[in-house]
């Protein structure tokens, strides 16, 4: 029973990281109807930035906050400079631009920081003042921090003017433009926020999987799976989906023979399964298209 609880709690911790990535994916999807395939690599890059700052002597938390801020700026710039020219192009062209970004971030990270794996310090102290055999301090911190981030994001969209404007720009760009919202800048802001949230995910996952340029491939896949499971049109659903996927991943790894070696295949099956049997996800709305 202890093992089961340990697995579940560790799954929730990993799952909350997937939630971050899923939320980042859903934010861009809501605003632009596209999955950002480069989301994982952007998060990886942010994590390297944090690692460099730590190496320069910055305290871990300061490095974390700076990296999140830098990611925000980078996200805005990427949207304005690289994604904007294909805003109205066919889906294929946009996907190709995302994949180009993915490749560039991956290669440049390997070029600057090399492909050797690096340990990354945890944001949380080893000693929390109490001991538990069920969950480690880092995992506990991850769950707490992501819940905090999610609450902030929710509050931002629910209670601020900018958040409202961003929602309007995503829901109905034309009407939003008519009431004076700069839809283009709202998109850029969305990219910035997504990049920041992704950065949180990357920095939280790095102490677990170690830092290397390919560390996010699996995480991104699980993030996608979480986003789809929860429903790509529902941010709350994406968060829950990420958590469920994290827990499922751990259960499958432990209880299904061969499961620990085939974790990515499990993500594949999950993605295809959700898309085939419940394309709108658990909490998404079904899109009906007019002919």
């Amino acid at each position: 029973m202890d093992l089961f609880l340990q697995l579940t709690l560790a799954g929730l911790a990993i799952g909350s990281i997937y939630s971050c990535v899923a939320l980042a994916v859903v934010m861009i999807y809501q605003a632009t109807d596209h999955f950002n395939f480069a989301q994982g690599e952007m998060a990886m890059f942010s994590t390297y930035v944090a690692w460099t700052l730590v190496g320069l002597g910055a305290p871990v938390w300061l490095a974390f906050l700076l990296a999140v801020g830098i990611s925000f700026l980078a996200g805005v710039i990427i949207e304005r400079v690289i994604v904007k020219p294909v805003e109205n192009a066919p889906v294929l062209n946009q996907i190709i631009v995302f994949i180009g970004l993915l490749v560039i971030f991956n290669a440049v990270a390997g070029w600057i920081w090399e492909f050797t794996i690096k340990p990354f310090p945890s944001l949380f102290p080893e000693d929390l003042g109490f001991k538990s055999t069920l969950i480690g301090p880092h995992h506990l911190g991850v769950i707490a921090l992501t819940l905090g981030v999610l609450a902030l994001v929710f509050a931002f969209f629910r209670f601020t003017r900018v958040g409202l404007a961003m929602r309007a720009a995503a829901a109905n760009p034309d009407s939003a433009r008519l009431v004076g919202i700069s839809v283009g800048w709202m998109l850029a802001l969305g990219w910035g926020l997504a990049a920041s949230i992704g950065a949180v995910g990357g920095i939280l996952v790095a102490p677990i999987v170690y830092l290397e340029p390919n560390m996010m491939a699996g995480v991104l896949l699980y993030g996608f799976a979480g986003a789809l499971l929860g429903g790509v049109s529902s941010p709350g659903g994406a968060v829950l989906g990420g958590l469920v996927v994290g827990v499922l991943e751990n259960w499958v790894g432990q209880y299904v023979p061969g499961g620990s070696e085939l974790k990515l295949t499990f993500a594949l099956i999950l993605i295809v399964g959700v898309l085939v049997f419940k394309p709108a996800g658990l909490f998404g709305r079904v899109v009906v298209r007019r002919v």
Partner: protein
Amino acid sequence: MDRPNPITPQLLAGFGIAIVFAAVVPHLVSDFTSFQFTQAMAYGIALLGLNILTGYNGQFSIGHSAFYAVGAYTAAILLYHFEWNHYATLPVAALVAFAVGFLFGLPALRLEGLYLALATFAFAVATPQLLKFDAFEHWTGGVQGLFVPKPEPLIEGLSADQSLYYVTLAIMVLLMAVAWCLLRSRSGRAIMAIRDNPIAASTMGINTALYKTTTFGISAMYTGIAGALSVFVTEFVAPDAFNFFLAVNLLVGSVVGGIVSIPGVIFGGLFLVFVPNFAQDISRAYPFVPPPWAIFGIFLILAIYFVPFGVWGAVERALAWWKRKSAGLGG
């Protein structure tokens, strides 16, 4: 422009010159260069599969590395464990890849554009791990992969590389012709109608489900044949050769050559073999130049900005412009 060009005397003449040129090449260059050209043609066949699916049928795949792996591993396993003749493995690789593609096309039916891209992305990312899986290790060789011999020359006097070059050339020309016939036919019009307007296509009585899955299968078949040929060329398969970056490579080749084209795949294949080497030379010579993959990524984005129709699209546009101009002068 979207349909493959009809046969005109000029086209036949151009094609003839290209074939004569291609037939002479291995006698002019070193065996290593022939080997590189063979690799380029193998890529070209894979790109043909991707073009049929994405360019002509409008279904996205960023997971064609998986079908490439299916073809490569089918051939390698038959060669390594059963000591089949090299060329006898090709039809089997084609069939297996077709079956896998057809089966993957079934769930893909319910997925459009982005979701299909996502599912194929997952397939590509999961493939190396599946190939390394312990339970299959006896057959796949696990992480180590499998070594297979190069096919013996078919004709005496040719080197193994030259012989393989000619075989690959013949297969590529044949498969290009098949693709051309398919896309010019009634079925081809149906395939393109589904891309342009799926609802209108099904209203016209086209069985969209059947066409889409079959196109997926055919596309996978082309890519599987290419994978099998690539094993003959490199004499080796290993799981990590079929990672997501191979899928990206194929996409880059398709876009560079022109995704809605048949002859464009030749340029795409040549690009994939020669440009990375070139980029590597440059980034080795000048340390401040980013690594080859980054250059590849930048190239991909720039290509989409400025020439989304690819090399062949540019050639077609130039020809059309020239025709208009000369017609204008004549009249």
